[in-house]
């Protein structure tokens, strides 16, 4: 039971992690919690579905799966770039406070969710089966193949992100922009480009998580409201810290699963809240311990 709970918690947490990392990345650069990520995830989940529909005759299971993931990631990046252009670009020009980004992104999230409602609300949809939905025994308990796949791919996506951030020039630029967008400009880099790239990366991550969510939980327009879990995880992890977000997400997943098995799902939110509050009081800087300078 214990092992089963931990494994379930990790698999839940790995989905939260993809969302949380997107939050952390954007918080680093623009200093706000990007709730439009939820809408982006919804759209990409449907984009992945449309892709799977077109390609299912031509491609085989695993290749098809890779193609669908790629399509969703690309569409996530494109949508995130569009969101930047429509909801954030002007706010950056007028040097608005982060709260306005926050408002703009929440509205954008609701808008995207609603566009999907309009487009796809005549029926329920679900992804084709990419691989067997069976379980394999591991440490004496059953683990679903999809869960393991999800976990592995989440880790792969996170490693790719770390590679981009720490081993490429664009990554260097983004990390520089995290310190100060204006100084980056002085150094001869285009901040528009960097911000858009950061958003596109988080959009691509959102695309991957969108497909996972859609695969596991069927498609519906409110899918993106899972974004709240990513938000919680990223704040617990320490605002802006990518490692912290991952740890926070996995801890949140395990915590939720444990409370569900101890006190039942009905009471779990109450206990998660209490633990969260206690944690923030004891360690107000979050897991990672980075303290982002409060705007003075």
């Amino acid at each position, binding site marked *: *039971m214990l092992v*089963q*709970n931990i494994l*379930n918690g990790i*698999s*839940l947490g790995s989905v939260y992690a993809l969302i949380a990392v997107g939050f952390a990345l954007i918080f680093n650069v623009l200093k706000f919690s990007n709730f439009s990520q939820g809408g982006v995830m919804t759209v990409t989940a449907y984009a992945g579905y449309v892709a799977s529909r077109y390609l299912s005759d031509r491609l085989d299971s695993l290749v098809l799966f890779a193609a669908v993931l790629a399509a969703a990631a690309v569409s996530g990046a494109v949508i995130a770039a569009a969101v930047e252009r429509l909801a954030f670009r002007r706010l950056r020009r007028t040097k608005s406070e982060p709260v306005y980004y926050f408002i703009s992104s929440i509205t954008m999230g609701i808008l995207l969710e*609603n566009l999907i*409602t*309009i487009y796809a*609300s*005549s*029926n*329920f*949809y*679900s*992804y*084709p*089966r990419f691989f067997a*939905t*069976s*379980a394999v025994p591991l440490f004496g308990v*059953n683990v*679903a193949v999809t869960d393991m796949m999800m976990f592995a791919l989440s880790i792969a996506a996170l490693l790719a992100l770390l590679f981009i951030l720490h081993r490429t020039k664009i990554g260097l630029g983004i990390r520089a922009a995290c310190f100060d967008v204006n100084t980056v400009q002085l150094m001869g880099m285009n901040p528009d480009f960097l911000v858009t790239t950061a958003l596109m990366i988080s959009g691509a991550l959102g695309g991957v998580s969108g497909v996972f*969510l859609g695969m*596991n*939980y*069927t498609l*519906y*327009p*409110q899918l993106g*409201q*899972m974004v709240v879990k990513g938000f919680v995880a990223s704040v617990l992890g320490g605002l802006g810290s990518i490692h912290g977000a991952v740890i926070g997400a996995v801890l949140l997943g395990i915590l939720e*699963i444990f409370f*569900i*098995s101890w006190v*039942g*799902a*009905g009471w*779990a*939110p109450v206990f998660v809240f209490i633990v969260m509050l206690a944690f923030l009081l004891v360690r107000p800087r979050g897991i990672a311990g980075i303290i982002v300078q409060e705007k003075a």
Partner: protein
Amino acid sequence: MKNGTRKWLFCAVLVALLAGFVGAASAKEILIGNMQDISGPTSVWGNAVTRGAEIAVEKINAAGGVDGAMLKLITMDTKANVQEAIKGYNSLVSSGVVAVVGPPVSNIGLALGPIANKAGVPVVGSFIDPRVTVGEDGKPQAAMFLMQPSSVQYSEIMASYTIDVLGLKKIGVLYDQSNAFAVSLMKPYVEYIKAAGGEIVSEQVYTKGDKDFKTQLTKIKEAGADCLYFPNYIQEAVLVTNQRKQIGFDVPIIGGLDFAPPFASLVNDPEAANNIYLANNFSEKEPQLKEVWDVYKAKYGENPVNKVFLGYDKILLIQEAMKLAGGTSSEHVMKGMPVVANLEGTTGVLTISPDTHQPVGLSMVMYKIEKGEYVELGRYVPEKHRAPWSK
């Protein structure tokens, strides 16, 4: 003189024509409201009911309307939200509708009850919570009518089938504690099972937005249940079906309406979508469906879901009430609705009880899902529900 007569005739024809036009424009349209979730979380159902209602209206109009007047459907968005629904209902009343096609969502029905009773414009809906149609004093809510089995009737059908037909007595229950629909289907089921000598070996809950039910399923499995009752929405039904297979929990699922098509195609795994029992409003093979089915398919290019037929039948009921009361005003619909009897609808033969404003003795069609395929088991109604006079 000839000339004079001609002039006179001309004038008479003109007056007659004018009178005809004025008459046609003023009295020959009956407005019917339709309150559905168009832009919110349950818009799949909202759209389905709306389309079904539209097909019924078109059919009635093509056959000459009601008393020579054409029906016109005015759709209001509720966003599945009580506040929006109250505004929408009041807006419909002020635009002069004579009846309202209600949403398949109970919470809106509960909030509309007192307001509709006061306004006197009846709501015909598929809100299955019996409190919508019967007030706390045990008297029917004057303006609220139900046109499918209530949650009590529905869950008793399922419970009776579980214990009386399948002979399963150790039952595990899993339901969404934050969802009124699920809770209202759970309580009467559990009561019926206990009264009939069955045992609830494990009762597990989850809340809105939960996606991982393996923990709860494992507990039910360990409690030794020989079947799982799971009355919830289609998304969760898909998840539970897949996760049941993942943890190797191979007992029958007794499910709600939401296991009806397209459920099995959403699971997309014949190994998982197996050994599931459900009750639907109708059978796809039943002849009365064919007409609506064909019209829908020609119009929208996909197969209709069951809510389409509920929408269709709601309009039929309103039309029948008008016919029985001999008029087309809201008072007539109110008067006619409780006396509707033996109306051949697409979802069954509808008889509304004047005491509860709910349909009487409505049977459901039982299905079993075997390897992803729906196998029909025939109509079923528990002994308890049969009216004493019917056989």
